[in-house]
């Protein structure tokens, strides 16, 4: 397709907003990029998902490049769960070819509704501190940047974490999202991983997850390079700014705004799918 400078500029701006909010709130930008590309630009769903996945890789890499020095990423847990997300991502790329665009739009609408509901809930709960003697092979310790306290944790229910990661990888490729929205709550509530570590580790893994999916879209010619370039440049700039603002920003109103925008986007997608 022909990408005019105006369309490129609009895509860069949307990518920047997606990257900014993604870095500040710990969600991927895909949930904004896909509806923009489908509803505003008029791309077919699969082409939008392909471009969005490429932008999600960029967000993951730039966010993790910054968090890597802060000991928030659990590398070992990430590497183990990546087996499941990459396999899920490849499987999703293969099934996406067989699903009708309408089905994908319906799935997107449902997931966006869930994301909207979950971002409204504050994540500022006090983490439990546990025994630091034995954290197991996959467990770890991290220093909470706000309180300065050292938290230790063991990873429990690994099969649950692996199954969830497979599903997250699958949804990621099918819908052009990062999939963190599925992994982070499960890791934090069921598998003993502190919220901050779960979010940083998930963001870290998403680079591999989204790459496995994006490769399939690229191979099928569903990844428009010019539009992807615009989206990636935007998300990189946006997530860079978001990471700098993230620590001191008042996120309560941002969360409400995000939930409102997402609710609107979800409704648009559902209307389109059910028309």
């Amino acid at each position: 397709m022909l990408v005019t400078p105006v369309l490129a500029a609009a895509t860069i701006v949307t990518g920047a907003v997606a990257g900014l909010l993604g870095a500040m709130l710990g969600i991927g930008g895909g949930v904004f990029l896909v509806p923009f590309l489908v509803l505003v630009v008029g791309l077919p769903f699969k082409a939008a998902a392909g471009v969005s996945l490429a932008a999600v890789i960029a967000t993951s890499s730039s966010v993790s490049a910054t968090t890597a020095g802060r000991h928030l990423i659990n590398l070992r847990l990430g590497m183990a769960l990546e087996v499941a997300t990459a396999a899920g991502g490849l499987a999703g790329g293969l099934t996406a070819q067989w699903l009708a665009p309408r089905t994908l739009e319906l799935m997107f609408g449902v997931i966006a509704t869930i994301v909207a509901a979950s971002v409204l809930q504050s994540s500022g709960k006090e983490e439990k501190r546990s025994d630091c003697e034995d954290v197991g092979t996959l467990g770890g310790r991290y220093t909470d940047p706000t309180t300065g306290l050292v938290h230790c944790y063991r990873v429990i229910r690994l099969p649950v974490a692996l199954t969830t990661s497979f599903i997250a990888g699958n949804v990621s490729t099918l819908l052009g999202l990062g999939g963190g929205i599925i992994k982070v709550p499960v890791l934090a509530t069921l598998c003993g991983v502190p919220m901050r570590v779960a979010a940083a580790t998930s963001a870290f893994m998403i680079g591999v997850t989204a790459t496995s999916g994006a490769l399939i879209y690229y191979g099928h010619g569903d990844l428009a390079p010019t539009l992807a370039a615009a989206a990636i440049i935007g998300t990189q700039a946006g997530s860079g700014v978001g990471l700098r603002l993230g620590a001191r920003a008042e996120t309560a109103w941002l969360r409400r705004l995000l939930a409102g925008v997402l609710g609107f986007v979800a409704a648009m997608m559902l209307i389109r799918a059910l028309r």
Partner: protein
Amino acid sequence: MSGDLRTLERVVGRVLAIGTMTSGTVLLVGLLASFVWPGHPVTSRILTAGILILFLTPAVRVAISFGDYILEREWWFVLWTGIVLVLLASGFIAAFAL
């Protein structure tokens, strides 16, 4: 051991930073070139190169971790990262070589 893990973390962080900067710069050049010479083969080569660097960045950090786990004799992690490398390699071959 935690000292080594932190070294790996730092190396991985640097790889991601370099990959992000490089792919972003190449894609920006490609995007600008596509307005000056739309549809020119060199333009699409530049864009493809930028996207390839973007895709390779997470793969390279997995490969570096794989090598580090071999040196550390952490065989379970050699296995996990090895499987991920095989999955990614098959994706790259299917997308770029077939």
